[in-house]
């Protein structure tokens, strides 16, 4: 790994410089993670007095648990929903902003700030929009004959958290798509125009293929976001309900561990989540490597 060709010589200084970061990492990251892995192989007796080593029993039980499988399914639907909705809208806005160079900055300012809104606050904003008694959207939907109620209807609840999560993520995707679009060489679109391609054809045959690294990168980031950074949205709106329809993995691990106090199974859930993050991180870094190559 790279350093400067000349370096400072000191035996102790670099360790002092690294110490704060490493100590915090070890105490609050690595040690708890190791604990989670260890506990995922144990089962506590009902009184919490002694723990037995049960190998993978917690995992097998988890994978037989319909509630857990349901959470996996909900997480999948949620992640895909958020990623597709948010990226689709962002790409549309980014392409538009890229066309209107002069007013682009103005639109950008109006589109980027939701990034700063806390997930819990974003959840509450949409929870209010969709509030079955006073919300404006159920009011409008009632004219179409649809009785919106995310407290009772599982589908409504999922749609609610997908919209809230996607809304918050639009700004992030938008900024990266704009950056990606601006790095497409002008000469390429000009060449395509001389070759007789109209704006739409140019976009789909020249620009969009060149955006594919950005698109792929954002897909990974959005899935990671939907799986791990949306705890606040779920907790502030549906709390996993109704009937566990929005009980995504990250919410379930909290609910089972903190509220249900099932140490072993909760630890097993933690470990599975860790593995998912590891996979997503590796995929993301492979992307960076690829980017470096061309």
């Amino acid at each position, binding site marked *: *790994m790279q*350093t*400067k060709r*000349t370096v*400072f010589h000191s035996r102790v*200084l*670099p*360790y002092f*410089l*690294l110490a*704060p*970061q490493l100590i915090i*990492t070890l105490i*609050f990251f*690595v040690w*708890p*993670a190791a*604990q989670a892995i260890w506990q995922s192989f144990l089962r506590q007796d009902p009184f919490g007095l002694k723990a037995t080593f049960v190998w993978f029993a917690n995992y097998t039980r988890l994978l037989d648990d319909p509630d857990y499988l349901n959470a996996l399914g909900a997480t999948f639907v949620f992640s895909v929903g958020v990623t597709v909705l948010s990226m689709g809208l962002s790409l549309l*806005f980014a392409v*538009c902003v890229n066309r209107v160079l002069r007013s682009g900055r103005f*639109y950008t300012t*109006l*589109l*980027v700030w939701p990034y*700063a*809104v*806390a*997930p*819990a*606050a974003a959840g*509450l*904003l*949409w929870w*209010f*929009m969709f509030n079955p008694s*006073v919300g*404006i959207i159920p*009011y409008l939907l009632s004219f179409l004959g649809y009785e919106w109620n995310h407290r009772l209807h599982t589908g409504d609840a999922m749609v609610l958290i997908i919209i809230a999560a996607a*809304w918050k993520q639009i700004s992030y995707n938008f900024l*990266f798509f704009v*950056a990606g679009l601006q790095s497409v060489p002008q000469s390429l679109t*000009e060449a395509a125009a001389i070759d007789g391609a109209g*704006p739409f054809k140019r976009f789909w045959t020249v620009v969009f293929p060149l955006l594919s690294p950005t698109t792929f990168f954002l897909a990974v980031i959005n899935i990671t976001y939907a799986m*791990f950074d949306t*705890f*606040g949205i779920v*907790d*502030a709106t549906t709390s996993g309900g109704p009937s566990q329809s929005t009980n995504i993995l*990250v919410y379930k*691990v*909290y609910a089972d*561990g*903190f509220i249900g106090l099932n140490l072993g199974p*909760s*630890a097993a859930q*933690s470990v599975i989540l*860790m593995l998912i*993050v590891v996979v997503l*991180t590796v995929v993301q870094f492979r992307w*960076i490597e690829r980017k470096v190559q061309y």
Partner: protein
Amino acid sequence: MVENRPFLNFLTHLVLILGVLTVVFPVYLAFIASTHGPTDFMSGIVPLLPGDQFSANYGYLLGTGESTAGAPPFLLMLGNSLAMAIMIAVGKIAISIISAFAIVYFRFPLRVPAFWLIFMTLMLPVEVRILPTYKVVADLGMLNSYSGLVIPVIASATATFLFRQFFLTVPEEMMEAARVDGAGPMKFFRDILLPLSRTNIAALFIIMFIYGWNQYLWPMLITTEPQYYTVVMGIKRLASVLDGDNQWNLVMAGVILAGLPPVLVIIFMQRLFVKGLVETEK
């Protein structure tokens, strides 16, 4: 490029205006709601124009709060959030920049393992190791304290990578010239590297401030005393109690108060924010 397609231009602006409206509307509605009294919702439909209870609602929340709902005065919670966000941002930047300095400007036996250890934090978000981390913090007696709110989250692989990336782009000769000029490592760090990193530090500060301000699960777990509550977790408590009372005006006022500071930061420092966001993901 010369291209004049009036219809396409019109469509472009139409899409953008609709997009902006979609993005802004929930906040507009929340603000409108926060200016009304609770009775204005009885009709079963939210008003679309501002009411006259703006100062009453916000004044009540800021000064009194809903102590029964577990929401102390918002002024206190806003103060806590501000303190927490600044401490997290400053802490992350401080420990990351010195780590990156060690990794780039020194060669020592445990350099690569140290780098990988820092890298691992990327793979361990608090949400996945929540119980054991809580236990460590509890064992260390850090529940209900600023140190408990801040220290466990200030390790940062992202910030360390960003500074490492940046340091690698600083010309080699900069450090060599400084050495010939008689500067030791810490003097070089303070006189040359830190000033050169100003923009990066500012950009990262914005990203990390927002991250810190928006902390939710962690403060919720480790604070049980209202004096340490932060505003983002406060609005959730407010919402769960006041929902039953139909006091959405107060809930939405709370949401506006909790969201405003980081949003203002982004709007006023958009250039730095974009730089920070795009560069931390490289």
